[in-house]
């Protein structure tokens, strides 16, 4: 049943993905003009050379031809090569993905891990001091501009602390260039960006858990559970919580695309070598093959994310299992 449903969903998503690629392609081309990626305002570049390279790259062919070739490539699992450095687009994605995953997954896990207890506590102490405190924090977290928070953190934790000759945190990158790359080093670099990102998730999800928890706690089956004479903790964490987190799963599933665009601002501020930053840089340089690759990838993620959300949802909530 579920399998069939899944297949149907995947098939239904194909036009979506195609639509996305066409859109990217058109936008990128409309914007690029006669610019050839990588060939900057270098006085030693001759028009003849630029023209030749353009046609070598096939940038002078009609749009539908270019798109067609690209599509055929995709069909054969070939994402094409970057216009900027001639290396396979996939190699870029593959190289950046781990970093992005490291950042986003950490943030998401932190977000979920903290938002559930916070949300539950808020729901149980509804209207109490702690609840109001959490509410205030999360409302703040939802309103604070990530890039600003990032700058402030850098300003304090790396610039100031270092100026004061105190232990400081790295201000950018995913690891130190030398003697770097070991776990501790990566963690050090992860702290600030992950904090910014997870703070956002945390503030959204904790409110979410809270409100759905409040709702669930008022349900009859919770009263039933109490009537069975079980400790409140069991009532909350066994009977109520599972019902409360079901919708959260959807929410988290929908965060998958954030792997590409959600962390972007954070990646840019912290110079995190992730897919978001790659996409941003390449888009502004009109390396459209790379951008196409990433958008396609992103679109697939969205589809997959929704799917995953549904499947998890079905797993957690039997009522819609065979829907």
């Amino acid at each position, binding site marked *: 049943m579920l399998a069939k449903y899944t297949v149907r969903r995947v098939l239904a998503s194909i036009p979506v993905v195609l639509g996305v690629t066409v859109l990217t392609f058109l936008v990128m081309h409309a914007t690029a003009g006669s610019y050839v990626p990588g060939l900057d305002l270098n006085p030693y570049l001759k028009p003849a050379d630029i023209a030749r390279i353009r046609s070598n790259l096939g940038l002078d062919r009609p749009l539908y031809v270019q798109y067609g070739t690209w599509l055929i490539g995709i069909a054969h699992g070939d994402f094409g090569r970057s216009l900027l450095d001639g290396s396979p687009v996939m190699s870029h994605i593959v190289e950046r993905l781990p970093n992005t995953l490291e950042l986003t997954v950490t943030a998401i896990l932190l977000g979920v891990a903290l938002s559930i207890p916070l949300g539950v506590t808020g729901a149980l102490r509804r209207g109490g001091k702690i609840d109001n405190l959490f509410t205030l924090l999360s409302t703040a977290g939802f309103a604070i501009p990530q890039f600003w928070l990032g700058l402030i953190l850098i300003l304090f934790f790396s610039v100031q602390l270092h100026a004061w000759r105190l232990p400081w945190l790295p201000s950018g990158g995913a690891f130190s260039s030398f003697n770097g790359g070991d776990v501790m080093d990566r963690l050090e670099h992860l702290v600030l960006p992950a904090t910014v990102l997870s703070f956002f998730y945390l503030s959204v999800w904790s409110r979410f858990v809270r409100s759905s928890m409040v709702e669930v706690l008022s349900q*009859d*089956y919770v009263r*039933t559970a109490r009537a069975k004479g079980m*400790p409140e903790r069991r009532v909350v964490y066994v*009977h109520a919580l599972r019902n409360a987190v079901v919708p959260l799963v959807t929410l988290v599933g929908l965060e998958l695309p954030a792997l590409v665009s959600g962390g972007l601002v954070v990646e840019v501020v912290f110079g995190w070598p992730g897919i978001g930053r790659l996409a941003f840089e390449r888009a502004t340089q009109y390396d459209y093959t790379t951008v196409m690759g990433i958008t396609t990838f992103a679109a697939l993620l969205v589809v997959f994310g929704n799917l995953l959300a549904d499947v998890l949802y079905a797993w*957690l909530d039997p*009522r819609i299992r065979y829907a």
Partner: protein
Amino acid sequence: MADHLLEVRGLKTQFPTKDGLVRAVDGVDFHVDPGETLGIVGESGSGKSMTVLSIMRLLPRPGRVVAGQVLYRGRDLVKASEAEMQEVRGEEIAMIFQDPMTSLNPVYRSGWQVGEPLRLHKGFKLAASLREAVAMFGKVGIPEPAKRIENYPHEFSGGMRQRAMIAMGLTTAPSVLIADEPTTALDVTIQAQILELLKDVNREFGTATVLITHNLGVVAGMCERVMVMYAGRVVEEGPTEDVFADPRHPYTWALLQSIPRLDADAHEPLRAIEGMPPDLSSLPDGCAFHPRCPFRVDRCLHDTPPLEWVGQTQRSACWVTQGGADLNAATARGEEGESRV
């Protein structure tokens, strides 16, 4: 007298709300003896559910018991710690609720839920508790129980769910089973089945049963004793036959009048109770029922009648009947009385 199984004395439960203090339960006394079945009757809002929820200490916020005792085997549950209550709930006193649709947790298998009280109170392991659950399913008449315990609540019909609820209540063989409107949410044919089941349970397990309902028919069919509540108070209490044959409170009388009777003479009109159920946050002075009472005398307007013995078996809270008046006989004059108003 602590020899009752469950005895409630002067119970008062209140809800402080922004529109004033709601006296949901306002000084209720009654008792339940082992193996007997007590029916609690009243309109919605008369405080029957709140009474039992007070006993179970499961009151929704912001309700709290402000006075009285709930003596279970002589122990006062009002003063009991939450931990002690948890021992009582489900193990000593089980409760099943009005709406079986929402009273089972949608995300767990029914067997898992039915077996849970055993795991909680009797230290059963999961497997054992499930075996027991199968047995109970059998007892409450759920076909092919072994399969059914694998199902989720949403795969059950309403009646099945209520059976499952009952099964869940009985697994630990409690000495009291409180059923709060167990049949209202079900359609008529199912209702009958569930009531039968409850009867059997009471007979078979000797479980004292407190049945809350607004349906006198149900009481007549099931209960040895009946207790009528109005506006958070007990207005009449006694053996079911006696109360039905000879109601000693105008409200009871009115309720009985409002039931269509086959044996009734066709010319006699069917009476609905006039007026609105009272607003618990602003009760009238005197007897709460007096605005709707056809027998009302002046005293009813300012003095609240206590629950007193009237006759051998019944108790009633009414100045009129305590004065020895016979309501059935008084009907005719009652109408005149009505017209006098």
